[in-house]
């Protein structure tokens, strides 16, 4: 009753000729290409170069315009110092963006944690180390809360963090009574909170511990993302969550860890911010959420997830810092600084887009 070719198992008749089929790989002649084309291709294979080049370009241009004032070791180290808080926040933001999310609450978490550490250590007599510990636990919990809403309740990250931003902001104002904690009071009761404000003088440069911390945070996260399985999973989730799930990754658990880690990094930023600002201001960094996103996108990390290097965010933050410092020293109004940053965002991402357009 069989109409098949069972015994031989050689497939249908028309498939028999396949053994003779052509095995060579197709190749086509290539047109010779111009410089721009070749540059585009070169950058395509190494996209993190883009923010690096923009950064170097920006430093060079402002060096010319604003002159020695800009180009001094002191000013350059100052820029690093100035971007360090937004830089660390951008690291936290990058983690979320790599998973195709976005976090509007990073700065709110940071400020809230600074207030918690400060209130406990300065006003409530808790040993400063425990105050800091509380802020780390709190930051992680805040991140976890975002993560739970994203993974369990399945809310889009944008909406989740739009909501929690308000929540964290209100808690911050409530806990702090909207009052800053004064530098002198911190010095007297909990000087360790200001640890990252210390600096090392190197020639004209002043490298604060906070600047070093920022670089260290990026280095550690870079390692985690690129050299561990967890990091591969984070990229896979950002790339295509469903595929990652089917490939056997516990995507929800990984996402939770990403959000928790991001909250933890915000708590690190909180500690660093006390050193940087010198006091604890509940009103500071109100725009920090969007500034961290700005750094991330200028750094070439795709808002669609899964593409880009976290180092890009560091360069992104530095680019913004260089622009602001350069424009400030060139005597440009804040007004026009804001204007320039707007165009910077658009140009940086447009260049990135142009480079990614090429097929490898």
């Amino acid at each position: 009753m069989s109409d098949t070719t069972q015994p031989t198992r050689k497939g249908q008749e028309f498939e028999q000729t396949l053994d003779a089929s052509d095995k060579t790989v197709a190749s086509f002649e290539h047109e010779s290409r111009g410089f721009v084309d070749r540059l585009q291709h070169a950058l395509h294979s190494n996209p993190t170069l883009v923010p690096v080049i923009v950064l170097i370009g920006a430093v060079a241009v402002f060096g010319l315009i604003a002159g020695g004032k800009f180009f001094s070791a002191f000013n350059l180290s100052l820029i690093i110092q100035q971007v360090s808080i937004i830089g660390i926040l951008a690291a936290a933001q990058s983690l979320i963006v790599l998973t195709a999310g976005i976090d509007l609450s990073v700065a709110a978490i940071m400020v809230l944690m600074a207030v918690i550490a400060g209130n406990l250590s300065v006003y409530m007599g808790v040993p400063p180390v425990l105050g800091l510990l509380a802020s780390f636990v709190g930051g992680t919990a805040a991140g976890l809360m975002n993560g739970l809403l994203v993974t369990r309740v399945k809310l889009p990250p944008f909406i989740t963090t739009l909501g929690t931003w308000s929540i964290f902001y209100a808690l911050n104002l409530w806990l702090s009574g909207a009052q800053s904690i004064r530098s002198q009071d911190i010095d007297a009761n909990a000087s360790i909170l200001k640890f990252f404000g210390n600096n090392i003088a190197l020639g004209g440069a002043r490298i604060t511990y906070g600047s070093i911390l920022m670089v260290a945070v990026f280095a550690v996260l870079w390692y985690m993302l690129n050299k561990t399985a967890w990091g591969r999973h984070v990229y896979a989730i950002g790339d295509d969550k469903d595929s990652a799930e089917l490939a056997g990754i516990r995507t929800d658990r990984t996402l939770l860890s990403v959000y928790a880690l991001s909250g933890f990094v915000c708590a690190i930023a909180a500690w660093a911010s006390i050193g940087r600002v010198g006091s604890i201001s509940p009103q500071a960094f109100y725009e920090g959420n969007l500034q961290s996103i700005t750094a991330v996108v200028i750094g070439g990390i795709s808002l669609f997830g899964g593409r880009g290097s976290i180092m890009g965010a560091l360069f992104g933050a530095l680019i913004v810092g260089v622009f602001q410092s350069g424009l400030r020293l060139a005597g440009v109004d804040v007004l026009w600084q804001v204007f320039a940053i707007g165009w910077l965002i658009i140009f940086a991402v447009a260049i990135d887009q142009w480079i990614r357009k090429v097929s490898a």
Partner: protein
Amino acid sequence: ADTTACLITKTDTNPFFVKMKEGASAAAAENGIDLNTFAGKIDGDVETQIAAVESCIAAGAKGILITPSDSRALAPVVGQARDAGLLVIALDTPFEPAETADATFATDNFLAGELIGQWAAATMGDTSEAKIALLDLNPSQISVDYLRDNGFLQGFGVDIKDPTKMGDEDDARIVGNDVTNGNEEGGRTAMENLLQKDSGVNVVYTINEPAAAGAYEALKSVGLEDQALIVSVDGGCPGVQNVADGVIGATSMQFPLLMASKGIEAIKAYAETGEKPQNTDGLDFVNTGVELVTDAPVEGIPSITSEEALGKCWG
């Protein structure tokens, strides 16, 4: 010019600071000083102000004029600037403590509030039937905000409890506090909200004149504009005009241009002689003065008319 000075304002979005900048620029040009100006993006933008102070140090400025966005948070960086040999003068908003800066050129904001409070009380006569709406700046409890608010209440004859807190009073005549963000839209919405609580509101304190203009619109839209006295602080030209137009009953005029030009002169003096300015006797700051502006003067409270004020407004 080889003397450089910096002016750092809270924002660029408030005409008060825009005026201040004009005043400083003019004075700087006159005195042959190079002026760099900076501003935060929004009120409370501490980090931008810190960066600005640092840039001034980097730029080798002789002195800094600053309206601190946070009267406590900026102390450390100001300390750095002073250590680096810069003269730092707070304008408009004092530091806490005031000695954080070398000098403070400011309005006595508490007094500014007190004047309009006294004027409102005297204008009403019998204040037992008063229903007071307090239109403050924002939830952040910054010093100008609570000083003016409490000053007003004290002048009006209300027990203010903690003079550094708003909203802790328990006087039954107070209908409520709401925030305005210091602009017309916020003023209008806040006024509507408080009218909702009690439509009998007859005294309206506002943090500044844009908020007062908004409050007036809200009252007018329900036909209650004649029921309430609106008082405010600032003395900006549009505000003074609003006094003339009967929108605002009285306002306490400040002198930002004076603050700025005195500041520049102080830096010049410091650069030339190393001398630092002295505080007004009995105060921990240099009082640049405040004048009550009203077209309905009352006995015992010195005031100027809106017409006189228009000649001076923010001059």
